[in-house]
């Protein structure tokens, strides 16, 4: 199998995950109020661009020790630029972190501080975790393997990407505080602006997710149909569970698919399809219950529910790989429950601290929130000076 085929393989993965960023954008467009739709779109695009830039400059170096400070001939080397597509593929993962956070802090966060936070996290914090888990940095994986028998198995990033993003987002949302009028005496929830737009976001995410998971093999030699089928089954489990537990709620079913996919990332290479179905179904339930808990008990105003979706279901996925990956449950084995548990908890704690610190520092230094007046007018007019349907404004 030549390098050309692997370049092609990873390229398709990168394109698919890039398409997921469109999904993040439209999921947010449909979920926020109309006065913040333009901001949702611009944020995702701008965050993506900032993320690629900083990951190119330092992030990739931190995670994998590879830089691009050499001539084109040198960085292409003799493998048809396979290493460069690898960067493309991995940077679409890195850029998912701000895209996840974006959904939590929507509708009241200032634009420039958010870009700065994205830069800090993608340049340094995420690559640190990524390097530890996927590149063996600091010997932590080796230590887990020594101690519990196997390293943390996080095949496609339930922990590295989703739990990390979700828990950073929780820290960010806590620093930011709820939207005006969300809680308190007269507080009330706001309904989403458009189900079709959020459904489109969910579809783009689901479609791209198969690239996220399967192409995480990073080469045709390592690719496995099991990952594809497990992703499918977990998504289906998430849909059905959210349908039943969420009582045919349009928001839950479209997020249930995503919950299943978040949870299956870690163990998709080792679980049985039936196990993946169960993992996805449990994730669907976790999302439904977790979202209500977060909104109504914790009174944390995480607009899209990114903490329950990515944070909780990602953590569940990390742990679940240590259960359903076992041969006794039909899995391929090679995973240790304790490594999964410890590794997941470690990632979660790190992420939460990162979220609190990065957004806490920004809050102290420049402030995070739109002025109340701007928040009331909406970020579209306040930040971008245009509404989502300008022709209709007259």
């Amino acid at each position, binding site marked *: 199998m030549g390098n050309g085929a692997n370049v092609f393989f990873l390229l398709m993965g990168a394109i698919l995950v890039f398409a997921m960023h469109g999904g993040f954008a439209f999921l947010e467009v449909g979920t926020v109020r109309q006065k913040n739709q333009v901001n949702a779109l611009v944020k995702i695009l701008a965050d993506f661009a900032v993320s690629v830039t900083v990951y190119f400059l330092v992030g990739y170096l931190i995670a994998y020790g590879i830089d691009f400070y050499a001539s084109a001939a040198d960085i292409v080397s003799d493998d048809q630029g396979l290493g460069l597509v690898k960067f493309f593929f991995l940077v679409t993962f890195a850029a998912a972190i701000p895209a996840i956070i974006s959904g939590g802090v929507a509708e009241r966060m200032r634009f420039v501080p958010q870009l700065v936070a994205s830069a800090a996290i993608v340049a340094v914090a995420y690559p640190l975790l990524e390097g530890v888990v996927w590149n063996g940095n600091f010997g932590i994986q080796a230590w887990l393997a020594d101690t519990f028998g196997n390293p943390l198995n996080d095949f496609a990033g339930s922990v590295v990407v989703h739990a990390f993003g979700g828990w950073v987002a929780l820290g960010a949302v806590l620093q930011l505080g709820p939207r005006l009028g969300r809680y308190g005496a007269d507080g009330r929830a706001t309904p989403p602006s458009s189900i079709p737009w959020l459904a489109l976001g969910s579809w783009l995410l689901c479609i791209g997710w198969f690239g996220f998971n399967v192409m995480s093999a990073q080469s045709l030699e390592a690719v496995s149909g099991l990952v594809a089928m497990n992703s499918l089954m977990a998504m289906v489990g998430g849909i059905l569970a959210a349908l039943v537990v969420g009582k045919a709620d349009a928001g*839950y079913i479209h997020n249930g698919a995503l919950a299943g996919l978040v949870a299956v990332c870690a163990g998709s290479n080792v679980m049985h399809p039936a196990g993946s179905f169960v993992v996805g179904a449990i994730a669907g339930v976790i999302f439904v219950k977790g979202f209500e808990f977060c*909104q109504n008990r914790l009174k944390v105003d995480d607009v899209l529910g990114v903490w329950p979706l990515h944070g909780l279901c990602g953590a569940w996925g990390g742990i679940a790989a240590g259960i359903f990956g076992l041969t006794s449950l039909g899995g391929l084995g090679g995973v240790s429950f304790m490594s999964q548990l410890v590794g997941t908890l470690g990632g979660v704690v790190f992420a939460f601290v990162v979220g609190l610190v990065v957004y806490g520092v920004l809050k102290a230094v420049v402030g995070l929130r739109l002025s109340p007046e701007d928040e009331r007018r909406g970020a579209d007019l306040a930040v971008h000076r245009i509404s989502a349907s300008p022709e209709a404004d007259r």
Partner: protein
Amino acid sequence: MKIVMAIIKPFKLDEVRDALTSVGVHGLTVTEVKGYGRQKGHTEIYRGTEYAVSFLPKLKIEVAVSDPAVDKVIEAITTAAKTGQIGDGKIFVYSIEHAVRIRTGETDDAAL
């Protein structure tokens, strides 16, 4: 001249227009409105949170008519818009002092 203004259920529009045409009314203006009254709204639910939708979609119809035509216009609307179910709506009548057809400058009854 009077304006007969009616709040009706949206799906009754065609019937009301036909009834008005058949009593000689050839012009009217329709506005989409939301109504609040005895008819209760519904509750929507999104991701576990309920949203009370207390205003219901209605249509407001405004017809300017000459004084003698008022009664048959009211009659026509009432008959056509009635379902007998709560929320059928109301008719209000008030006087206007002038009417002008912009195109021709004709005034009052000739303008209708």
